[in-house]
């Protein structure tokens, strides 16, 4: 077996590109993606529907070949050595892994057989997963009689059966109610704590924020940001909104704030001044006192710490929430791709 050191990335992609031709038009779904993910990381691909997240995931999991570029997963090339990649990974797709007419335990066993796992080992592993995912009492029922949350847990159990080096999850919480979504996030967190490398796609900001150690923001087939959620937000800075009694006050305050705060972006509209600056929430009280002391007291102040949506808005000029809602028609990306 291949020997991996912890320094070697478990996923490496260079210039990964995917074009689809759809009704004589070429759609550039992924446009030259570079990526390095290390063992033990929990990474979220965040972006609106149709951004190229799922297409990227489908290339990394060997479901579709890249148009150009290369990618290695667990040390194996996703084109030349598809079989080895498939043995090394677990995949939880947007749909359900277990067929509705099957029983949960049967599907886990068939997954074990597909991975060439000897019967005794397989049985033990299946029991282990059934109890870990609280499915033991539902294992011998037809999958179609299970609840949405139970089915999703079964999907993950099937994805984990071969003890994968990387677990890929494509929009894992879509269609789950808030409680099941929270449960799912707990399970993902626990897997991460156990050392599993996890790559997931999501268009839920809260999910990426709450879950991932590292957020890779993808839009129009390109990586537009790649960092931890706190750092992405810190780089954007907090927004301080000030209102003044007169435009003259506002104008004077804006000038003072601009000269006083390093790397602040100050804008004035009428009697309103908005200041975007790193650690803006921390500097806001001193700023208010300073402005009052110089004869331009603010009559209202609002401090907004950034969300990932603000980060996305800053990077693309669009709100992720809006792009997600308005492009729901492109949800077929995964299925059609």
């Amino acid at each position: 077996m291949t020997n991996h050191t912890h320094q070697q990335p478990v996923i490496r992609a260079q210039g990964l590109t995917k074009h689809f031709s759809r009704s004589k038009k070429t759609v550039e779904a992924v446009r030259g993606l570079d990526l390095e993910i290390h063992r033990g990381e929990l990474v979220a691909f965040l972006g609106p529907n149709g951004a190229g997240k799922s297409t990227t995931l489908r290339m990394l999991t060997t479901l579709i070949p890249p148009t150009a570029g290369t990618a290695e997963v667990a040390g194996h090339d996703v084109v030349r050595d598809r079989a080895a990649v498939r043995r090394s990974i677990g995949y939880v797709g947007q749909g359900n892994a277990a067929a509705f007419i099957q029983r949960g335990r049967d599907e886990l066993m068939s997954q074990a057989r597909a991975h060439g796992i000897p019967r005794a080992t397989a049985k033990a592993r299946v029991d282990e997963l059934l109890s870990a995912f609280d499915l033991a009492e539902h294992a011998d029922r037809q999958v179609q009689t299970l609840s949405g949350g139970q089915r999703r847990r079964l999907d993950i159990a099937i994805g984990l059966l071969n003890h994968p080096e990387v677990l890929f999850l494509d929009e894992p919480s879509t269609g789950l109610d808030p409680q099941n979504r929270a449960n799912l996030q707990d399970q993902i967190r626990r897997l991460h704590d156990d050392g599993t490398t996890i790559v997931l796609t999501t268009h839920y900001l809260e999910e990426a924020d709450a879950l991932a150690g590292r957020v890779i923001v993808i839009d129009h087939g390109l990586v537009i940001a790649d960092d931890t959620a706190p750092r992405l937000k810190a780089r954007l800075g907090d927004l301080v909104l000030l209102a003044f009694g007169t435009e003259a006050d506002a104008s004077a305050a804006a000038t003072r704030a601009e000269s006083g705060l390093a790397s602040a972006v100050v804008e004035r509209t009428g009697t309103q001044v908005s200041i975007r600056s790193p650690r803006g929430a921390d500097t806001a009280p001193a700023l208010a006192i300073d402005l009052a002391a110089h004869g331009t007291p603010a009559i209202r102040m609002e401090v907004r710490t950034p969300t990932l949506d603000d980060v996305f808005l800053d990077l693309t000029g669009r709100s992720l929430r809006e792009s997600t809602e308005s492009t729901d028609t492109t949800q077929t990306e995964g299925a059609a791709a």
Partner: protein
Amino acid sequence: MTTLTVPTAQVQRTTHTLSRPTGFLTDTWTVLVRELTPKLRQPASMLFAMMQPLVFLALFAPLLPDVEGGSALQWFVPGIVVMTALMGASMTGADLTAEIRSGSHERLLVSPLSRPSLLVGRALKEVVPVLFQTAVILAVVTPFSFDLHLGGALVGSVIVSLFAIGLGALSFALATAAKEQDWVFWTVQQMLIFPLLLLSGVLLPLDGAPGWLRFLSDINPMTYVVEAARALFAGQFPADVVVSGFIAATAVAAVGVLVGVRTMERSN
């Protein structure tokens, strides 16, 4: 020392998968077992499937005219076996549309199972019941005017199975191409099986047919499979007929798997 070995073991747990390479036959068996399991869990449905050709035989065989120099049953039964295989194998893709829609097919595509094994395993799911049905038919008709020739019947079944694997793979390809639209699958399937059936001479001999019909029958691979099955089930081994049947069945199997794998690669 012991404190050092414990963490090492844990690291190894997370960096090595349990997965081991498998071969085509193992994979095919895995797919077949997976497909048959839900059926075996509901034996009643299997039982009904077994009865179906018998119903057909019971209602149709009494209408058969007497044939010169042999029993009509002897001529008719092999055709029924091939027909049962045609009906079963052409349904291979039917369950697939549901699995494509739900996502379980995608999971199998990401698993280490090879593409051809997914096709052949699924096609065999329809072949296995056909073999049982054949056994039931033979058991029922043998007490009447039908001579059982076990060796011939076995060789005949092999040819019919090959043919069914090919048809099953084509049905799989059709379902893959139809994606989530069931009606496309059913329309094409229905449109194709009846010409195949009638042109193969299963129900009526085509000896007196007009030239164009004879021509269509001659280019239907199923015709050769039926003729080979008739000879073999009667305990005869005419080399040309058996070899043509074998070639026709193998060709259908090869084309089916080829088309199936290509459709699968493209559909993603």
